[in-house]
């Protein structure tokens, strides 16, 4: 398959973005919460990595750390590195990261209404990156903005360009956000829950638009989501997060078809509609842990159906279990048992 060949040739290249052992802490009135604890992943040019997890797992904190958007002063990077183009973003001052992010790394958020300025016309907002970063004149910048709005599927763009954000629907606003994000042809696009606030038909359109734009531009994408289904069509690799750590990562088909972490397996079993109708769901017991009071050892062990006393002894690190596909890593000492229960 050509897909496979392309994937192989990419693996040989050095990654576009390399996150290594990232540690982020939040200072709260109740103590210090370690929101990210040793997160590592690579993103290659042209590939889509999905970062999946439930609330509090650290998936959004990861993108905030990359973009220097951690809420200050509560959150800070306390260890690890974020290597982009030979620069360690974790060590650079915020202003420098922002400059870089303006052109090379772009981001879209869940709520397009709160990310757009309500008192400026759409055209001026989409044109802003051209004017500020490329120093274009107003007319030229607006012409470029119009092109972009057409590209992301805003109907009647010539007229709509002078409308304000509230005059657009949620899906159209997300298209406008995407237009702004891709304006300067970023090399990486981070999409944090880009379709969570949207209706299901609109969600499918937006995911399709993102995939098309990626194919056209060759940019890398990091899709952050709580929804395992939404990313299934577009992502080639996934990283599943739990309590601030990546607990399983690998090719998406490998991970979804043969999950080897009990948490991943539990998540897949919890999805309604994924198995026979009328059958009760098999939820994971309990609820996600409090980051201020993490269980000893593997953070998942109190909810884990196959936990053994050793699970409490040490935090398991990512490893390639026996029989797993290349690049499939799991942070579970009993990963082999999970697989055998497929």
């Amino acid at each position, binding site marked *: 398959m050509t897909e496979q060949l392309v994937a192989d040739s990419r693996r040989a290249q050095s990654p576009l973005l390399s996150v290594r052992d990232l540690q982020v802490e939040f200072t709260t009135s109740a103590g210090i919460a370690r929101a990210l604890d040793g997160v590592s992943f690579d993103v290659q040019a042209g590939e889509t990595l999905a970062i999946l997890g439930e*609330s509090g797992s650290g998936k959004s904190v990861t993108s905030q750390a990359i973009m220097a958007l951690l809420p200050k002063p509560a959150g800070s990077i306390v260890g690890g590195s974020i290597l982009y183009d030979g620069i360690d973003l974790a060590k650079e001052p915020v202003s420098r990261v922002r400059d870089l992010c303006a052109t090379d790394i772009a981001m879209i958020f869940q709520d397009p209404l709160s990310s757009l300025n309500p008192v400026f016309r759409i055209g001026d907002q989409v044109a802003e990156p051209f004017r500020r970063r490329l120093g274009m004149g107003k007319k030229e910048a607006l012409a470029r903005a119009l092109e972009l709005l057409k590209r992301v*599927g805003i109907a009647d763009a010539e007229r709509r360009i002078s409308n304000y954000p509230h005059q657009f629907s949620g899906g159209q606003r997300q298209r406008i956000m995407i237009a702004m994000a891709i304006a300067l042809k970023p090399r990486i696009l981070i999409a944090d829950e880009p379709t969570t606030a949207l209706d*299901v038909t609109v969600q*499918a359109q937006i995911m399709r638009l993102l995939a098309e734009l990626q194919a056209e531009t060759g940019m890398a994408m990091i899709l952050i989501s709580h929804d395992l289904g939404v990313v299934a069509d577009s992502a080639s690799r996934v990283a599943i997060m739990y309590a601030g750590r990546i607990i399983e990562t690998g090719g998406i088909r490998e991970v979804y078809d043969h999950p080897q972490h009990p948490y991943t397996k539990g998540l*897949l079993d919890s999805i309604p*509609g994924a198995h026979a109708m009328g059958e009760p*769901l098999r939820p994971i017991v309990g*609820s996600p842990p409090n980051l201020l009071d993490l269980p000893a050892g593997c953070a998942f062990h109190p909810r884990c159906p196959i936990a053994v006393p050793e699970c409490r002894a040490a935090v398991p690190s990512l490893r390639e279990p026996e029989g797993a596909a290349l690049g499939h890593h799991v942070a579970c000492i009993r990963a082999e048992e999970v697989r055998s229960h497929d």
Partner: protein
Amino acid sequence: MTEVSLLKVQNLRVSYPIHSSILQRRIGENMAVKDVNFTISAGQTVGLVGESGSGKSTVARTIIGLEKADGGRIEFEGRDITQSTRTELKALRRDMQMVFQDPFASLNPRLSVQEIIVEPWLAHPDVVPKNRRASEAKALMDRVGLNPDYASRFPHQFSGGQRQRIGIARALALQPKLIICDEAVSALDVSVQAQVLNLLDDLKQEFNLAYLFISHDLSVIEHICDRVLVLNGGVVVEEGTPRELFENPQDDYTKRLFAAVPVIRPWLNGASSKPAGTIPRY
């Protein structure tokens, strides 16, 4: 399943007035619900699906008396409840309860869990005698999977899933026949959502509850409902069992809606969750 319909909605019409910007004069109306017909039998779960603006929440709010119908008829156990007075509504709410989407906004932050569950009994004192209320509240907590030792804790001390369980316990307090769940599991993480869905299923069996289940999440609907109504622009465009709608949708809108549901493993059967063709423009 009995043939007697618990709830019967006929030709329901609900509109919201549009007011002019300065003088607030009524200049028109927005027809949220144009013509909706359906019945729910005792012990049955009926799902209402549709996208934002389809009118699904308005239908629910009108049934429970939070909005006034402009036309049509709502019958509960054969009685017309469309033009109920406040006293009649109060009696009616004993049989009909609602669980809301946001477990953070729908619980009074100043009341303990026990006070929240006991509160419906203050309005309907005959359901549980005063001296048994505390113990009954704890029994309900236990039934919905909350530790009864936490009865004196406040909502902020619970997680989202636990708060939704408190909301369910409160809805159960009056032993209703129908519970309206308006996006009741939408705000929950998937692992916790599955727990709550299983709980709703168990309670249905145990108390012969009927649910009107409103959700934008079609996989949830598919899982929990006996019958599903697809709402578009305030009109029911299709009705059927979840299986019929998923496997053989008739209406164009239903087809589009169900085709857009993300598939967990799109590589199986070569199925893709993306509808073919170009992006529809709105």
